[in-house]
């Protein structure tokens, strides 16, 4: 992949102009992200609760917050839950999205357009609106899903989907995957259309079967895009907040359904334990870095090679 600069931009090495142009953006990012990050690190080493909220100076407690956290089995339960939720959702989204993208190449033109329209609609839906609709679809008494399942011969009359944690997470997964698949399908499909047809044909002549073609020709060709998309899914699904929060408001036990995002919110904004919440947030950031580091490294490597 080549940089698209045609011709040579001026080599204005000594002018301060580019730096001046970057100042507003840099200042905005430092104020709204950099400073809070620093402050959060500090906060995570302080005893900062409701008393401090009302003016008592925060007390420096060293690693106490972290010690309390890592010795609290609840944090580990929430972490494990978040990781499992993230992996299940990211994998399901990738499999369905990439699968649809691959199949789109073989659909009749009309069907492909139809599917693309449907995916666009789902993609364009505002998160909160999708959540209300899905809650309505899964509604205990008047929901279409219970109606359809009962019609099909299962006993789902008056089934409360959000009451049991497992079923709660099933609903959350359906919603998250439904919302995320369009992005994956479109992006991967766009990348697939860039794979030169001669490449596929030469593989045909060499006698590569369908699976072999996928593995040795198609996937390597779209690898950069697959990496980016998978990386984004992992990030988005680990930080999932809105879906869980709103479903929690609609029913279900908060304690049994908290993921890291909602746990931080409920500790800090809900419970006023800002020091502890900051420590969990730092933990979550570290987890994000840990999970995404291999991807990022491989992306940066790719960048340098190009």
């Amino acid at each position: 992949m080549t940089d698209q600069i045609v011709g040579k931009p001026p080599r204005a090495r000594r002018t301060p102009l580019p730096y001046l142009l970057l100042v507003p953006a840099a200042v905005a990012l430092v104020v709204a992200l950099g400073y809070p990050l620093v402050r959060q690190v500090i906060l995570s080493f302080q005893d900062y609760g409701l008393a401090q909220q009302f003016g008592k100076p925060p007390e420096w407690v060293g690693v106490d917050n972290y010690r309390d956290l890592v010795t609290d089995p609840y944090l580990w339960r929430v972490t494990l839950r978040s990781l499992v939720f993230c992996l299940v959702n990211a994998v399901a989204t990738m499999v369905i999205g990439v699968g649809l993208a691959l199949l789109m190449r073989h659909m009749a033109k009309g069907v492909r357009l139809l599917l693309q329209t449907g995916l666009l609609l789902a993609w364009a839906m505002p998160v909160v609106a999708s959540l209300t609709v899905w809650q309505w679809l899964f509604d205990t008494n008047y929901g279409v899903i219970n109606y359809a399942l009962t019609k099909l011969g299962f006993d789902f009359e008056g089934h409360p989907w959000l009451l049991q944690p497992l079923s709660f997470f099933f609903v959350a997964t359906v919603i998250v995957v439904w919302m995320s698949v369009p992005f994956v399908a479109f992006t991967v499909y766009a990348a697939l259309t860039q794979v030169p047809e001669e490449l596929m044909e030469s593989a045909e002549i060499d006698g590569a079967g369908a699976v072999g073609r996928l593995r040795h020709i198609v996937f390597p060709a779209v690898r950069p895009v697959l990496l980016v998309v998978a990386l984004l899914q992992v990030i988005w699904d680990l930080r999932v907040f809105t879906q869980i929060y709103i479903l929690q408001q609609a029913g279900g036990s908060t304690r049994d359904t908290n993921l890291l995002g909602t746990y931080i919110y409920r500790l800090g904004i809900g419970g006023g334990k800002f020091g502890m919440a900051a420590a969990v947030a730092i933990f979550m950031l570290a987890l994000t870095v840990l999970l995404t580091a291999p991807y990022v490294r491989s992306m940066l490597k790719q960048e340098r090679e190009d």
Partner: protein
Amino acid sequence: MPRPASRPLRVTANVVGVIAFVIAAFPVYWMVNSSFLDRNEIRNPVPTWVPFGGDLDNFRTVFEGDQFLNAMKISLMVTLLTIVVALAFAFIASVALSRFRFRGRMSFIVTLLIIQMIPVEGLFISQYKMLETMNLLNTVVGLSLVYVSLVLPFTIWTLRGFVTGVPYELEEAAMMDGCSRTQAFFRITFPLLAPGLVATGVFGFIQAWNEFSLALIVMTREDHRTLPLWLSTFTDVNRGTDWGGIMAGSTLIAVPVIIFFLVVQGRMVSGLTSGAVKG
């Protein structure tokens, strides 16, 4: 054109395509459908599949009182402030990144990439504390400030792709004809960037318009709720009683976004992937 595939593969592809279409589109259809149904039809155990004989009562409910309109006003102010500031900052930054080679350029780009990966929820506790200290909780400026930082990295990233896409030779040619460098940029490159600016702006608009987590922590007062917050409390308060009204509210929020989205999406997909993949 793909090679002609085997018949079973084509049939499978088409069947899967139609099923996937139904799953993707049905919730959207159901939202619009339900928004026209009256209480009896909503509460009928047998679903009403098409809104024949429906009316606009649910929409009337939404506009009753000033909560919806107030939330819309807040949402519009926050969103507009956010995209105006973000576009202005991102535009000049993207010019620096694509028209100049300077020390630290690559580090800035990598930093943007990394910032995009920071989960909002990983920082919102301290962003809340910061806005509290600055007396900016429950203010349009406060929410816009954190929104700018939310959309800025992506906006710079995408605009940079658009600026780079305009060949520098065009500017050079104008300079040979006697334009100064600045003139050449604003007379030649800038007009060519208009579609890119619009697309990026619309995308930022959608992001800010839909955002929930930050709005939830910054706008705690009822009269400062944005539309997504208003909608989420709407379901809360009415818990399963007024689905028609909730669907009408959802439809009102979603339809403009869907229209906007359809307009810019093609451009953004290419912008997003080229931006994300190319250095």
